[in-house]
């Protein structure tokens, strides 16, 4: 099923001409309303009227997360506050949060794109959508909520936390769709089993999971444990929130990015050069319709590649491959680039291992050390020490085979790695700052 047939299946040529029209409009708008962009375009010697084709986009400077911080709180807003109807902010893990504002039309567009996303995931009117994304400054909760209402589904505004209550309501209210982070969905599955409940007594069909990178093997695990189709959704508050891109249930391969609203480029994160189609690099997004805080060539720091081949679902919008991580989640250990998701994929492929893990990075002398902590459970535990040691050697070897670095594997007692009700904290980096 397709929510908006006209726009989601627009022939490429028409889609690209719509993009160009919208691009010229937004570039003109930010130049005239946002002092930051006027200054930055001027410094690069480019005027809005230089944009004649989509290819001309590359002439424009990037917008960085730091630019948003420097403009805290409202510096990048393109309209006066009396037109802003909602303000969200991203969790500022370092320093102040990043602030975004939405006009009424932004909120409408967001609901439209989330409704498209729900339908692409296989949801429809009549579904009971259990929204376990956090409500509040975080965009996840309200973003999914408005989309679910627009779709005409029955939305339960659960928000995060209170797992026992989540399970009770999911069971008694007959929730059919759950929206949360992938790690929380596994945590729920574990909690359901611990309560002695049978997943077959639940009506869950679909999980729409995002806000953190996850792997294909984690998908298999979630689908098996919760007996659902697990769909990857992508978004970031700077651009809009959830619903920037989503997998279709038809292919479950790559996330359609709503190209009538967003222009995607893939660049080499080091040189800033645009990469040939299909190559892996950093995703850069230009918002084409945003009014509150339009962004030009925003560097998302997310690593992916474009899948230009047409999709079987009939949508013409290009797909992004599953994000392999955020460039700032990437660890550099002894000179090797390591994404936590790579280690996760090793662990999940070993039978019996729970995908609860934590990476401890430290430095001994001048050498980086990596410790992978993995929880033991009754399936992996043995009364024979050598069986447990074989397990740790196997994990160590598979990580070495994949990444070329030797790590220490430490088996820890169950439930000792903190469970997250939002985004999982996978990495503890104890190295002194450079």
């Amino acid at each position, binding site marked *: 099923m397709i929510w908006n047939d006209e726009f989601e299946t627009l022939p490429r040529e028409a889609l690209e001409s719509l993009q160009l029209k919208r691009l010229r409009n937004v570039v003109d708008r930010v130049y005239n309303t946002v002092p930051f962009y006027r200054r930055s375009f001027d410094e690069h010697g480019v005027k809005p009227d230089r944009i004649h084709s989509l290819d001309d986009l590359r002439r424009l400077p990037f917008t960085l997360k730091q630019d948003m911080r420097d403009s805290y709180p409202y510096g990048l807003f393109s309209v006066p506050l009396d037109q802003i109807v909602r303000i969200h902010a991203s969790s500022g893990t370092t320093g102040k949060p990043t602030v975004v504002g939405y006009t009424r039309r932004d909120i409408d567009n967001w609901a439209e794109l989330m409704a498209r996303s729900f339908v692409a995931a296989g949801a429809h009117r009549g579904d009971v959508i259990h929204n376990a994304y956090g409500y509040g400054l975080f965009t996840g909760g309200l973003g999914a909520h408005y989309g679910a209402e627009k779709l005409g589904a029955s939305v339960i505004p659960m928000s995060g936390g209170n797992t026992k209550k989540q399970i009770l309501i999911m069971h008694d209210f007959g929730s059919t769709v759950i929206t949360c982070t992938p790690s929380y969905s596994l945590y729920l599955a574990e909690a359901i089993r611990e309560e002695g409940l049978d997943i077959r007594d639940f009506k869950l069909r679909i999980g729409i999971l995002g806000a953190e990178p996850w792997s294909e093997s984690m998908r298999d695990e979630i689908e098996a444990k919760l007996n659902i189709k697990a769909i990857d959704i992508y978004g970031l508050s700077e651009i809009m929130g959830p619903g920037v891109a989503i997998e279709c249930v038809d292919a479950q391969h790559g996330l359609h990015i709503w190209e009538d609203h967003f222009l995607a480029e893939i660049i080499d994160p080091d040189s800033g050069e645009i990469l040939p189609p299909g190559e892996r690099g950093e995703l850069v997004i230009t918002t084409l319709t945003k009014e509150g805080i339009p962004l030009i060539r925003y560097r998302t720091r997310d690593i992916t590649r474009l899948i230009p081949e047409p999709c079987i679902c009939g949508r013409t919008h290009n797909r992004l491959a599953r994000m392999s991580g955020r460039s700032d989640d990437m660890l550099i250990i002894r000179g090797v680039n390591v994404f936590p998701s790579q280690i996760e994929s090793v662990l999940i492929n070993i039978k019996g291992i729970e995908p609860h893990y934590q990476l401890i990075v430290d430095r001994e002398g001048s050498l980086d050390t990596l410790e992978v902590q993995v929880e033991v459970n*009754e399936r992996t535990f043995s009364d024979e020490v050598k069986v447990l040691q074989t397990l740790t050697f196997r994990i160590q070897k598979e990580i070495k085979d994949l990444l070329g670095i030797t790590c220490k594997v430490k088996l820890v007692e169950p439930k000792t790695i903190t469970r997250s009700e939002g985004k999982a904290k996978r990495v503890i980096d104890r190295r002194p700052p450079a």
Partner: protein
Amino acid sequence: MKVNQISIFVENKKGRLAEVTKILGEAGVNIRALFLADTSDFGVLRLIVNDSDQAQEVLRKNGITVSKTEVVAVAVPDHPAGLYSVLEPLQQRGINVEYMYAFVDHYGDKAIVIFRFDNSDEAIRVLTEHGIAVLPADKIYGI
């Protein structure tokens, strides 16, 4: 003839062993024999208790990883080469000892040794054939 042993995963950290024994103590579980196999990061605590079902249940309830294994309790002659007289026939029949530990108590003039064999049934048969006493479970739990 086999004896239930429970094994517990314990991380090498302060107070962990005390915690495990406290849980068992509060549940009225009495420890008959124990052995700790350790590595630098973790240990496997093997216990023979008076009520292994009860022990397993309370440990699980406290989030501790526990498994149950069948082991064999053998009365070993308490004199030089006593242990050899037990191991020799087993070795001849190709039965491996995965691990073993001695019991704190005695059985008459014999020492009690707990064995984990790769093939318990065959081991019990061989030992019995050779007139070596294999102790019944209730004898061990009730000591």
